């Protein structure tokens, strides 16, 4: 199953100058709790960013802000040229462009795998069912589980479920994919098949932002690693320099914990 897993990094990065995500001075509070502090971040088309940092540092919150699952209270977030405001039209537009994969898959258990995939194309993109199903099968093949199309999520293993979740997002043909710890709820054996899928996505030039602690993955596919702590971006760098020459004390501490683990 892992023929696609490149043994050595093949970073055929084609990063264009087009800015896909821009966060300017973003602040967010949960009640009194200041969870994101002055986040500034620019993601260009074709970039693959890995976000890491200790638990509770605001990684999930950051990427959830990008497709407005959370609201920010200050600053600007501009996705594909559109500013995220509370404008429902904008939100809808941006969510079409941004796919998201969750830690716990969040597949719809009452629908088959294929139905999960075609739901949004049909109801959001108003695609004819036939066409949507073809598209769905295409992406299920892409994640290597076309044979599971008629099953229900409950009948699949965790790794398969996560790949369905990825296919479901891809069916909306998003320009950006967000991943929130996509492998942390999986048994070790299944982690690899999901990572393989993500690697192959990356090779196709998808813009990606991924919260993960899989350092192997970070080294292999990302072109930038961002380290967050206590709601701030402490350090960002290319993976090589990030892992080998961390600049900040906290980063060093964090890496020492992670890598020895």
């Amino acid at each position, binding site marked *: 199953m892992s023929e696609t897993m490149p043994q050595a990094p093949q970073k055929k990065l084609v990063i264009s100058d087009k800015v896909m995500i821009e966060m*300017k*001075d*973003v*602040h967010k509070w949960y009640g009194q709790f*200041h969870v994101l*502090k*002055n986040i500034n971040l620019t993601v260009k088309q074709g970039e693959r960013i890995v976000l890491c940092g200790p638990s509770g540092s605001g990684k999930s919150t950051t990427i959830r802000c990008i497709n407005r699952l959370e609201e*920010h*209270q*200050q*600053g*600007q*977030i501009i996705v594909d040229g559109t*500013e*995220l*405001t*509370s*404008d*429902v*039209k*904008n939100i809808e537009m941006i969510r079409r462009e941004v796919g998201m994969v969750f830690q716990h898959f969040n597949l719809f258990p009452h629908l088959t795998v294929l139905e999960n995939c075609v739901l949004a194309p049909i109801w959001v993109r108003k695609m004819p069912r036939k066409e949507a199903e073809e598209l769905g099968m295409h992406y299920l093949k892409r994640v290597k589980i076309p044979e599971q199309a008629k099953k229900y999520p409950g009948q699949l293993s965790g790794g398969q479920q996560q790949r369905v979740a990825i296919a479901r997002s891809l069916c909306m043909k998003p320009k950006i994919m967000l991943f929130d710890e996509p492998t942390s709820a999986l048994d070790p054996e299944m982690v690899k098949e999901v990572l393989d899928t993500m690697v192959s996505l990356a090779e196709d030039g998808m813009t990606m932002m991924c919260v993960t602690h899989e350092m192997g993955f970070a080294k292999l596919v990302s072109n930038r690693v961002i380290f967050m702590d206590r709601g701030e971006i402490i350090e960002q760098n290319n993976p090589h320099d990030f892992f080998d020459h961390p600049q900040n004390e906290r980063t060093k501490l964090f890496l020492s914990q992670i890598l020895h683990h």
Partner: protein
Amino acid sequence: MSTQQPGSLPSKPPFWNDPAVRATVFQVIALAAVLAVGGYLFHNTQVNLANRGIASGFGFLDQTAGFGIVQHLIPYTETDSYGRVFWVGLLNTLLVAALGILFATLLGFVLGVARLSKNWLIAKIALVYIELFRNIPLLLQIFFWYFGVLRHLPAARDSVNVGDVIFLNIRGLYIPRPVFGDAFLFVVIAFFAAIAGTVFLARWAHRRQAETGQPFHTFWVGLGILVGVPLLTFFLSGMPLSWEVPKLTGFNFRGGMVMIPELASLLVALTIYTAAFIAEIVRSGILAVSHGQTEAAHALGLQHGPTLRLVIIPQAMRVIIPPLTSQYLNVTKNSTLAAAIGYPDLVGLFAGTTLNQTGQAIETISITMAVYLAISLLISTLMNWYNKRKSLVER
């Protein structure tokens, strides 16, 4: 917050796309719709009442009712007002609800425990009881007891006679009524003194146990005080109590106290029906406490009784109390079925007879509904408060 100097705020969307604006508009529309419907109904009602020349208002509450009521807990005669009828009805409702709750709880707990009994026969009997009675409409059960059973009691002259003091016939169950002499006041005082004494004793026993570890048989001694002291006073003050024994004079038994068959059948049906539900609640409450708790308590050397009292019941009660309360509410609401067999409860007397005599449909039904609503809200408020207090302890 520290001096994080704010960047710019996120831009404001055009107002028609602003969810906040949309929500406000939506809510205003909803509110307007509700008000419009309400206003429309109110307007229709006004017009209808005016057109038909129906008097409205609550003035009728002061008018003379003019009809008799078979059972009244407060003094009542035909010349009293409709307002008084309301109170008579409310008290009758509360009486049947309170007694129903009491008996249903007792029977329900017994059945719930029986359902879990290790004795196969007992458990099965309880099961059959529960499945039988909770699947038959309450009204049918009331009819059954009233028309099917109590109707077959003997006539007044052929009453079932227990020692010439208690009589049972189709008109009801007649028992002697205590008549208190003046000196009975001392007995009452002695009784309250005994209560105070018992409370004091319990406190003392608690303290003593805390200090010395010696348990004290508070229950038995307390019971002794509670019974003994008033009894002693009673004899010392020359037994200032006599009994008014019911006697058959003319058509009916006079004197004594009577439980009319309408009340009896309502009570029996309510008890039997509700007990089936309470039994299930009790059972699931007890089952919700894991077997490990019992084992742990036993392993610590606690015996069966203390295990139940200190470990199982406190935990089961938390599961039991919320659904139990809603059963209590159901008893109160179900007591309105009294109307079907002529027990003079609030609905029968007020939303029934009074409505009919005065024609004040809107007023009487609104008042009646408001009373039940108030009882429900009161109980559920208490319940929420209780739950909140209990769940604090949880975590």
